[in-house]
């Protein structure tokens, strides 16, 4: 525990890679991810927790990274958009956003992919209402959400289900 205005040593695992860093106590996680680690896929839309563009997954919790101090993420495992796909192959969620044209300008897309990935991890067969509720924290000003919902429905259908 240190005084405000000073720094804190943190250790975080991001997309499987461990990072040790000294961060200003006031630094937000999103700034640490973008500016210190150079992972620019996590976007900043509003900086007030309203838009969801900065959504990442912290210790299994869907999180707006502008609403968490970097110091609060000490010892956490974090997944960002850069860690979603492996070996250059799109995940079913990413593939479905591509096929259903679930984006226009693409600014909100990293956050939406994280929210959709989180949803399908919990609920492989969501209803349309469940999908709409799951992306409520992610604002898209282009699409009107119709193609985003279709994308997530398609991703759900594409994900192999455990034998019933």
């Amino acid at each position, binding site marked *: 525990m240190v*005084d405000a205005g000073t720094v804190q040593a943190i250790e975080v695992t991001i997309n499987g890679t461990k990072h040790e860093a000294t961060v200003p106590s006031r630094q937000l996680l999103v700034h640490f991810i973008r500016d210190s680690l150079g992972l620019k896929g996590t976007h900043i839309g509003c900086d007030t*927790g309203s838009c*969801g563009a900065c959504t990442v997954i912290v210790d299994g919790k869907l999180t707006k990274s502008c*609403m*968490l*101090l970097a110091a609060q993420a000490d010892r956490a495992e974090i997944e960002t958009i850069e860690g979603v796909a492996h070996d250059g192959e799109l995940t079913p969620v990413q593939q479905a956003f591509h096929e259903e044209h679930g984006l226009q300008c693409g600014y909100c897309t990293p956050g939406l992919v994280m929210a959709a990935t989180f*949803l399908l991890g919990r609920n492989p067969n969501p209803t349309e209402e469940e999908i709409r509720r799951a992306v409520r*924290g*992610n604002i898209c000003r282009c699409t009107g959400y119709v193609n985003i919902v279709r994308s997530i429905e398609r991703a759900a259908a594409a994900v192999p289900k455990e034998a019933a």
Partner: protein
Amino acid sequence: MLSEREGAAALAGGQSLINVLKHRVASLELLVDISRLEELRQIDRLPDGTLEIGACVTYDELDRSDSVRSAQPLLAHVAGHIEDQQIRCRGTIGGNCCLSDPTNNLPPLLVALDATMMIQSPGGPREVPAREFFHGYFSTAVEEGELLRSIRVPPLGPNAGVGYSTVAVGADSKAIARAAAFVRVDGAIEDARVVLACVAPAPLRHTAMEKALRGAQASPEAARAAAERIGEDLEPLGDAHGSSEYRREMARVVARRAVCEAMVEGGDRRG
């Protein structure tokens, strides 16, 4: 640490406090991150059926907890409809209460459920009933140097139900008027608690409406008639989302709906 240092504050989910700091509404010397203290993250069922919920239990955890869903399904449902998934993963029941924003979801429900707030003081623990906990805008019974540890929610008991109704700006969004109700029916209405929110600085037990309900037959007509007691005594602040008059009118509507839901739920529980 909270009691020894001036300008110190507890940080739990941070879904309000971080923005407060960003906007420089408050400036703190020391932030104590309590969100990962295991003892504040437990949900326990006491022998008498009371749920003891740690202050740092998140909305998402309330929504998904089997013990909350079985003992207090409405509490799980309300927590599961707070804003969005990201906020539900971080925001905590203790933070929702200690912020005491009049539009917050949980305070009126906890008052209707007759919950008890367990506060840790430097001198030891103390208990405050939920109905005395919320003092007003952003003000609660938690004094400087103290910490809300947990919240005890007693079982509803036989023949009782709870209801909750909101008029909001949009789905799961900021509330314009809100009510939570507890009703116990045995033939006629034996007991009622009606709590209004967003229309006063803190959750408000509307005793005149409660009095009108007691002894009445449990029916939508009785709820409607009792809600007429909500009147000029209420002076809600108006804003861009609703004038003072509109909020007062909506308070009658949500109060009636919450009481009806509580009567139906109590009826279901009677089988």
